[in-house]
């Protein structure tokens, strides 16, 4: 499932040449999974719907990892609250999906989602209006995380909250949002969040066509995010970001507004995380406040660390590798998973600071030297 993509991607990027082969990998990954899904079920190459949706989910995680790598790997900002942006994007699409249920809910109310009927709410709260339009919801999925990041980042960067302080307050931010979304009177379904979605753009979510479409959309989004991030990190702005990471106050004395740069990249990163969340929710069919849990955010950071921060393909590779391992281990030996994940945190910081990509590059270099 994830194996060939992972290996191929790693190989392509580890060589350091984003050449034709990379595009080929993208194209294959894009086409192969939905096509293999179309094969007859008894074919050895057949990929089940389940595999398609799991892979699609991982791709969303890869976008999230990319967004974290952009700020952490390149600008040295460690956000422990990126899960919040992911979840907000997911909630925005979730609201659209809830509105699309219409009168097919348990209570059969034409407008109100089930949980509102259950809470005896007379009408839709003002902030639910507009979400019946997909375009509006899609816009909000990006705008809400972006705006939150803009405001939060402005407050934090302006007063030069850096390093671990920033990490801690971002963690507090996602924690506060989690507590807030657990509340029924927030109007986001409380504990249970949103589920029981029916269809998107008129097509039922459960159909293979829809699943394939979501998969392709996620992969395209990942590709575009990757290209955007690559454009940014290879521009002069990207070099300013690295400079901020290396010596923040020096950058300031060179006349760059560090606040503006951080704000720019933090907001963009939050938008990408929101995009990931928006693509994720229709594929998993549920969103609840648990997505805001601080552990989720920090786990996403570790994907990046495992893959190799400061390299965009490392972030993608890390997300796929760790989630692949998680899927496998939680079925084989569920008790062990947390040990492995915790061990990854330790291993990646103490012995493998450059992650898998760093390891691959070193091996490549060593081979080169040997010849």
């Amino acid at each position: 499932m994830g194996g060939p993509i992972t290996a191929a991607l790693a190989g392509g990027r580890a060589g350091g040449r984003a050449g034709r082969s990379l595009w080929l990998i993208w194209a294959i990954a894009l086409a192969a999974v939905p096509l293999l899904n179309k094969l007859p079920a008894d074919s050895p190459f057949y990929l089940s719907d389940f595999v398609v949706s799991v892979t699609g989910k991982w791709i969303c995680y890869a976008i999230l990892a990319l967004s974290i790598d952009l700020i952490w790997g390149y600008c040295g900002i460690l956000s422990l609250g990126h899960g919040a942006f992911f979840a907000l994007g997911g909630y925005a699409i979730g609201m659209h999906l809830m509105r699309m249920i219409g009168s097919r809910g348990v209570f059969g109310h034409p407008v109100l989602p089930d949980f509102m009927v259950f809470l005896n709410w007379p009408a839709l709260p003002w902030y639910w209006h507009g979400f019946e339009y997909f375009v509006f919801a899609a816009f909000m999925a990006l705008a809400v995380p972006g705006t939150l990041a803009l405001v939060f980042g402005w407050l934090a960067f302006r007063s030069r909250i850096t390093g671990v302080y920033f990490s801690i307050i971002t963690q507090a931010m996602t924690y506060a949002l989690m507590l807030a979304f657990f509340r029924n009177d927030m109007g986001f379904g409380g504990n249970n969040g949103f589920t029981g979605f029916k269809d998107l753009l008129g097509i039922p979510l459960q159909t293979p066509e829809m699943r394939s479409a979501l998969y392709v959309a996620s992969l395209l989004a990942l590709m575009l995010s990757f290209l955007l991030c690559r454009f940014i990190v290879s521009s002069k702005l990207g070099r300013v970001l690295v400079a901020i990471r290396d010596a923040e106050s020096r950058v300031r004395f060179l006349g760059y507004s560090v606040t503006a740069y951080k704000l720019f990249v933090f907001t963009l990163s939050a938008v990408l995380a929101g995009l990931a969340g928006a693509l994720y929710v229709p594929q998993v069919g549920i969103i609840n406040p648990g997505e805001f849990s601080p552990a989720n955010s920090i786990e996403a950071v570790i994907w990046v660390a495992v893959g190799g921060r400061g390299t965009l393909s490392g972030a993608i590779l890390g997300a796929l590798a760790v989630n692949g391992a998680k899927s496998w281990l939680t079925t084989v030996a569920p008790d062990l998973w947390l040990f492995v994940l915790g061990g990854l945190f330790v291993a990646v910081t103490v012995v493998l600071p450059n992650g898998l990509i760093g390891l691959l590059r070193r091996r490549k270099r060593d081979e080169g030297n040997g010849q």
Partner: protein
Amino acid sequence: MIKLRTLPTIALLALAMLICSLAPRPATAQGAAADPFAAALERLAGGDFGQIVEGINALAALGDARAVPILRALGDNALAKRQSDQRLAILRDDGPIDAATGTRLEPADRAAYAPIGINNRVRVALRGALGRLVLFSPDDAERLAAAQGVYRSRAAENLPLIERAYAAERNPRIKAQLELALAATRLMSPDAATRRAGVDTLGASSSAEARALLVETRAAANSDAELVAAVDRALASLDFRLQIASAAQTFFQGLSLGSVLLLAAIGLAITFGVMGVINMAHGEMVMIGAYATYLVQEAIRAWAPGLADVSILIAIPAAFLSAGAFGFVLERGLIRHLYGRPLETLLMTFGLGMIVQQAVRLAFGAQNREVSSPTWMQGTIALPGGIAITQNRLWIIVFGLAVLLATVAVIRFTRFGLNMRAVTQNRPIAATMGIPTGRVDAMTFAFGSGIAGMAGVALSQIDNVSPNLGTGYIIDSFMVVVFGGVGNLAGTLVGAFILGIVNKVLEPYAGAVLGKIFVLVAIILFIQRRPRGLFALRGRFVES
């Protein structure tokens, strides 16, 4: 001589008078004929229910504690007349005794006694009378219950009785209750002045019950403008005092929460504040301390049940040592490789926390483990003004402050503390002066971790001991350290208490969750103005 009082005939009374006059007891000076107690007892034996009720009421009005067992016996159908001489007797399982004197009566055979029958009217009278009479019981608890009883019944006829009991009462708590009862009963009086006196007394109290009474009185006293005005005045003064009481209660709860935060944060103030190591496994250190407490308790239950009450005291060093040892190993094994890389340290310790949590979950199970409080920590203390303080919370405040003081003392006055300060202030110079910096680092980290373990002992008293015990406190403790100013124990103290109190003040208005959110947002905004906390260090060295 006392038994003479129960004699029904004049002749015997005369004889009694003669004997009593000979006896040296002052009580006997009254004389039997004038003795209202004896007269009331006579009525009980009188025959018809009307007389019995009169007798009961007469006994109740006397306020003589001796009547209590007699009336109880009557209620239990155990009061009887001796067939031979109509003397009142209480039929106990071990034989009849004289109702008046408590001495044994002959014959022991029950057939020689005729029980005194009662009906519902008598029962009602009995209940009221007993309620009033217990006011004079020698037992504090009984008197208190009686005082609460008359307060609730509010019968105007009780007034003289309550006045008498109030005058005689020595126990301040019961006296206060009686004062309330007196006031409440006065409200029922037909006399306007008495009613007003009652209103004033209630106004001077500070209980929600008194307030309800006043509101009720005000509603009933629509015609009496003067009374209404008095009630309004009383209500205003009562409300003010109730507010103070509730503020004091909130304050205490805030202190209590603050001391929990303090305990969890002191260790962080050492590891994060002093050493600059951001330990996300700090919550797990707390959890280890709580499990150490649990294990000590289980060990004592198994091998030395007699020590159960001091189990928690044994747990304190046990928790300190186990969490400290873990911290030592952690620092030597992993953290020291990451000095100067705070973000990596953060991630590494988070992962480590995960491993520890999962290991504990596998070893002890995911369910909550129960740690019981020793008896001396249970119960509540009632302060005047209706403020109730739970003992264990009070102990935790004391413990938190004690740990803080001990920490300060260790840093200030010990060799280890001196080394620690030297190393954190200037590592190279400390090293050149022969201080083993590596070992000091390890010891400092172990010290901070040990304090976290002691926090676990305290938390085991008020929270569930479960593998994710520490997770709930870690963000809050970091907020305390950041808010108070990193590297500053005074800031940690003030920060912890301010956050605790603000949390509790917000709770009634916003609920626990929203209150917490407000506090988090407020801290984020606060850091805007003072990025380095409440007690920030200033100077050119700060940023390096």
